[in-house]
């Protein structure tokens, strides 16, 4: 029976998107599909953490942003002048920073508790920090001075951007390992707040470390894994194809690019969902759910709860990192200010809860549905407000205000959807089996 429910729900979803294509435009519809696919992958990652293991990660934004950084670092060309100016100094100073942290950890673990240990730790930390800064500051300053209007950063590796997707996953996984080591021992709500804070720190770093990401100056024009519209419009096979089906070359070229992206994203989503389903149904998946449902008894059965939590935290975060890299690829630019916790953390949570936590297909459906509502809330709100205010005089202050405010319907819609689903269908649209 449950697959029937899946089929029905996904068919309705597809019909809704087709509706947008029919009534609004196909360009918008394919744009929605692309972001739906990415959202679905993010939701899948969060579902692995929350649905399988009950870990409350409110730092999704940070891992998505790391994926974005990967896209940047893999795809843009390196800037040799910047490397010459301060590249190695930066690397050296970061190594000093890492050594300091490791030394501090060893001292903390190796020495007996007491005043002496605190003192040595303070000396090591402050000394390491000052030493690091004394090399780091001049090096990064030199990098940022290299042609600041167009570069002013180290650049990347100049490799195909599609490589950034797995690399984004690895980067996010590495960060998740550190974050998990620090926070997974904490109670659920402390974990939530700690991850929220760490994601803010990650985004703050991306925003302000100009030598690495150009910060708020953004990096635009990242290379694409799919053809450019302008090339398509001049390619003879494309012109022939559009002529054959009677399509407008210019407008179809942008749709065609979106379809290419959608195909790539769909492949990634299918691979991930295949693995997720396999994992969920394996002994490992059963163990995870056992831990989620009763940590104490799972522990008593000899399961290493902390290690399993760390594992699942890393896996979920890696998937979010992949999605983050895909998103930056789709945007074609890295804009650190765009990382906003409402959009990148809390909306993803709404997706997981609405879709059905613990069920991979539910998370995917949630990703699609919630992103659809997120995009369509604005035109629908506009339409609703126009309908509501149609009886009022055109110069009425209330009418003008309501029409202007319609754009803010989005957040409220998200909140109301979340609260209604939690209240009346707490296991989501497609519940866990």
């Amino acid at each position, binding site marked *: 029976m449950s697959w029937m429910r899946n089929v029905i729900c996904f068919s309705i979803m597809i019909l809704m998107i087709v509706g947008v294509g029919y009534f609004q435009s196909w360009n918008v519809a394919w744009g929605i599909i692309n972001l739906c696919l990415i959202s679905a992958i993010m939701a899948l990652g969060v579902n692995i953490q929350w649905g399988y293991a*009950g870990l*409350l990660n409110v730092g999704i934004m940070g891992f998505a942003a790391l994926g974005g950084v990967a896209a940047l670092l893999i795809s843009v060309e390196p800037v040799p002048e910047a490397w010459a100016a301060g590249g190695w100094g930066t690397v050296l100073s970061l190594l000093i920073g890492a050594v300091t942290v490791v030394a501090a950890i060893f001292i903390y673990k190796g020495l007996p508790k007491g005043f002496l240990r605190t003192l040595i730790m303070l000396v090591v930390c402050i000394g390491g920090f000052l030493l690091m800064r004394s090399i780091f*500051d001049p090096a990064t300053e030199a990098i940022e001075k290299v042609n600041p209007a167009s570069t002013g950063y180290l650049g990347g590796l100049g490799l195909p951007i599609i490589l950034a997707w797995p690399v984004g996953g690895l980067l996010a996984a590495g960060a998740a390992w550190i974050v998990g080591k*620090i*926070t997974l021992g*904490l*109670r*659920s*709500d*402390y974990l*939530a*707040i*700690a991850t*929220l*804070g*760490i994601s*803010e*720190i990650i985004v*703050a*770093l991306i*925003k*302000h470390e100009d030598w690495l990401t150009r910060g708020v100056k953004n990096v635009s024009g990242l290379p694409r894994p799919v053809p450019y519209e302008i090339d398509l419009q001049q390619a003879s096979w494309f012109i022939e194809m559009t002529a054959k089906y009677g399509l407008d070359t210019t407008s179809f070229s942008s749709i065609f690019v979106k379809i290419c992206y959608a195909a790539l994203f769909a492949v990634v989503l299918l691979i991930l969902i295949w693995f997720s389903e396999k994992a969920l149904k394996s002994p490992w998946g059963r163990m995870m759910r056992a831990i989620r449902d009763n940590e104490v008894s799972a522990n008593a059965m000899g399961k290493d709860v902390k290690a399993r939590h760390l594992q699942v935290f890393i896996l979920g975060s890696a998937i979010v990192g992949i999605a983050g890299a895909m998103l930056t690829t789709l945007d074609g630019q890295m804009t650190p200010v765009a990382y*906003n*916790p*409402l959009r990148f953390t*809390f909306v993803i*949570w*709404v997706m997981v*809860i609405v879709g059905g936590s613990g069920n991979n297909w539910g998370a995917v459906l949630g990703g699609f549905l919630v992103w659809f509502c997120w995009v369509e809330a604005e035109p629908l709100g506009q339409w609703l407000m126009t309908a509501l205010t149609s009886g009022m005089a055109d110069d009425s202050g209330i009418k003008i205000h309501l029409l*202007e*405010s319609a754009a*803010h*319907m*989005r*957040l*409220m*819609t*998200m*909140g*109301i959807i*979340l*609260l209604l689903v*939690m*209240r009346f269908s707490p296991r989501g649209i497609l519940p866990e089996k």
Partner: protein
Amino acid sequence: MEGMEILNALAVFSNYVLVPALTYGSQLALGALGVTLIYGVLRFSNFAHGDTMAFGTMVVILFTWLFQSWGISFGPLPTALLALPFGILVCIALVLLSDKFVYRFYRRKKAAPVIFMIASMGVMFVMNGLVRFIISPKDIQFRDGERFIIKAREFKQMFGLDEGVAIKVTQGITVVIAIVVVIALFWFLNRTRTGKSMRAFSDNEDLALLSGINPDKVVMITWMIAAALATIAGTLYGLDKSFKAFTYFMLLLPIFASAIVGGLGSPLGAIAGGYLIAFTEIMLTYAYKKVAEYMVPGDEWEADSLMQLLSTDYKFAVSFMILLLVLLFRPTGIFKGKSV
């Protein structure tokens, strides 16, 4: 002249660190008190608290505009202070509605704290949307009345120093109101019957229920106090800086940090946490160049760097680094909070 140098250094330090940190700390402390009270009684971290602050402040701003249009003012003080009681009342009404329609259901079901927390994210979205819908997401200034208690120039003349300390009216108001509110709150918690029942409920729910405390009443009073605190904190912050829906949502981060660093559930801890976070945030990101130049004897010496530990860009990050350190080394906070 030696003594003057040190006084000048002190003046610079007060002007840029002490006074702003005291003000910001008071605002955080009031916010964190609300979070900690809700945690103590309802046992969840309320993600909607920042937006509750925004909603209360928004109502205060609307009433301020109304009063201004009627020509009512509060003399040298901001009109917003007159509007504050109305803001508190409307905010209490909204928060009680959110309890009735959202949280009560989960209380009856004895849902896990995590579920409450996710529900509070839903409330957060709705409140945030409401504020943007009603007053727009723009930056709004609603301060009026006098600007300064002491201007930097007057201070210099008064004490014959090269450096002045300016104290804004909003800074003075913030500290005074924070002190009054905290005294009133502690009097209520420690001296009144209702306050004592709140503390009893927070310490041990089962025992409190056995001794005949009405849980619905305790929960209602807690929400009312939290809403009042949120509105006051939000209004003071908005007067001091400015009002913007997104900024208030982001205030949630340092407020949570303050409450946890102090020990969730401990009111005294929330106050200590608020000041601790504010002082470290400002002290770690302040450039000590000028202070150092006054402190080092001899006139010629000039610092060759800004002497800043961290760039101001990392203000928010600082509060979280402190939070992480506290969680790692003393998970219940400075003042022993509760662990559920």
